[in-house]
C-alpha cells in the first residue's frame, strides 16, 4: 500500500494536472465546495417557499423536494448527463454535469435543514417584526434567516461531508475525481486491486473523518452561542 502511495500520490492528489486535466482529491474537494456553495442559495429559496403563506407555493416546493429525495443521485446524474446537452445544445464537461446533479440533489436535502431552522424559531420573532411594520422579505432577510442559518450551521457542515462522499459517483460518468484516479491507478497496476481500493477507502476516511471531527467543535460553539441568548 505504501509503495502505491509513494508511486502514485501525485496522481491521486491532483490527477494529471500539469500535463492533463485537474483531478484526484483536489478535484473531489473543489466539486464538494462548489456543489455546497451553489446549492445553498437554491436551498434557502426552497425553504422560504416551503414556509410560504401561499399554499400553492408551499405545495410545489414540497413536491419538488420529495421527488428529488425519492430519486437516487445516480439517476439525477444520468439525467443531467444525457438531457443537459440536449437542452442547452452544448456538450458539457463531466465537471459541470456532476455539479448540476449535485446542486439539485443537495439543494433538496439542504432546504429541509434550513426549513427546520426556520420552523424552530419562535413565532413571536416573526410576529414582532411584522407588527413593527417591517415587510415580509425584510423580516426574512434581517430577522429569520440570520438566526435560522446560524442555528443549522452544524447540520449544514455535516451535509458538506456527505457531499464529498457523493462526488465519488462521478466515477460512473468518468469525472476526473479521486475514485476515478484510483481506478486509473488500478488499471495501470492490474494486480493489486485490494491495495488500491483499500488505499482509496483510507484516503476518503481520513479526509471525511477529520473534517467531521473538526466540524464537531464548530457545533459545540454554535450550541454555546445559542445557550447564551
Amino acid at each position: 500500500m505504501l509503495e502505491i502511495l509513494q508511486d502514485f500520490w501525485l496522481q491521486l492528489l491532483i490527477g494529471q494536472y500539469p500535463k492533463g486535466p485537474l483531478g484526484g482529491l483536489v478535484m473531489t474537494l473543489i466539486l464538494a465546495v462548489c456543489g455546497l456553495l451553489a446549492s445553498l442559495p437554491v436551498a434557502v429559496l426552497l425553504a422560504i417557499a416551503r414556509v410560504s403563506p401561499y399554499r400553492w407555493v408551499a405545495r410545489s416546493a414540497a413536491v419538488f423536494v420529495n421527488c428529488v429525495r425519492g430519486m437516487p443521485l445516480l439517476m439525477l446524474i444520468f439525467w443531467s448527463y444525457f438531457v443537459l446537452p440536449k437542452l442547452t445544445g452544448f456538450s458539457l464537461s463531466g465537471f459541470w454535469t456532476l455539479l448540476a446533479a449535485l446542486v439539485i440533489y443537495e439543494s433538496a436535502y439542504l432546504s429541509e435543514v434550513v426549513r427546520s431552522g426556520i420552523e424552530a424559531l419562535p413565532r413571536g420573532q416573526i410576529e414582532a417584526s411584522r407588527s413593527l411594520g417591517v415587510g415580509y422579505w425584510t423580516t426574512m432577510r434581517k430577522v429569520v434567516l440570520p438566526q435560522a442559518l446560524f442555528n443549522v450551521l452544524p447540520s449544514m457542515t455535516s451535509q458538506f461531508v456527505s457531499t464529498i462522499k457523493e462526488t465519488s459517483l462521478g466515477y460512473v460518468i468518468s469525472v476526473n475525481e479521486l475514485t476515478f484516479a484510483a481506478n486509473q491507478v488500478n488499471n495501470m497496476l492490474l494486480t493489486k486491486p485490494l491495495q488500491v481500493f483499500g488505499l482509496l477507502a483510507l484516503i476518503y476516511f481520513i479526509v471525511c473523518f477529520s473534517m467531521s471531527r473538526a466540524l464537531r467543535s464548530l457545533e459545540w460553539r454554535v450550541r454555546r452561542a445559542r445557550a447564551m441568548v
Partner: protein
Amino acid sequence: MSFLTNAQLLSMLEGMLTTVQLFAICWVMAFTLAVLLVVIRTIDFAPCRWFVDTYVEFHRNVPLLVQVLFWYFGMPELLPEPVRMWLYAHNAEMSLAAIALSLGSAAYIAEDIRSGLRAIPATQFEASRALGSSFLQTMRFVIVPQAIRTSIPPLVSRALLLFKNTSVAMAIGVVELTYRAREIESETYRTYATFGAATIMYLLGSFLIMFVGSRLYKRYRINTGAGHA
C-alpha cells in the same frame, strides 16, 4: 419523444425486481447486523466498544461506491481459489454488492437504534429490574418496545436511502433498474422515455416507503400527552 416497446418496459420491470430484491436482502441483513453491533457495544469490555465504534465511523466516512468497488475488486483476492471460482460462476456482482450495501447500512442503522435506546431514561430499566423482572424480560417488555418506536422515523429514512443506494450496484454490473435504463438508452437513444420510466419506478418505490413510514409512525407514536392530534 417516443415511447418504449413492451419488451423494453418488461426488461426495465425485471431490473426493478432486482432492485427490490437487493433492497429487501440488504435491509434484513443490515438490520440483523446492526442489532448485533448494538449488543456487542453494550458488553463492558473496551475492545468490543472500540471495534463497534471503528466499524461505524469507517463505514460512515467512506463513500458507498468505494465500499462497493473495494468488495468487488479487492475482496475476492483474499478468498481461496475454488471459492472465488464458485462465486464468479454464481452472480458474484449481486452477492458482493449485497454484502457491501448491508455492511454500510448496518453502521447507520446501529447508530439509529443506539440513539433510540439512549432516549429511554435509565430509571425505567432500574424500575423494571427492581420489580423483579430479569434482564431479558426488561429488554423485551420495557426497553425494546419503546426504543423501536422512537427509532421508526430514522429507520424509515434509512430504508429510503438504502432503496436509492442500490443503484450504486450498477457500477459493478448488477443488472438492476439504473443499469437496465442505461442499457436501453444506449440501444435506442430514447433518452426521455427510458430515464422517465426508470425515474417513475424509483419514485413509486420511494413514495411507498415514505407512505408506509408515516403510517407506522402514526400507529406506533408514543402518546406523551403533549398535543392531541
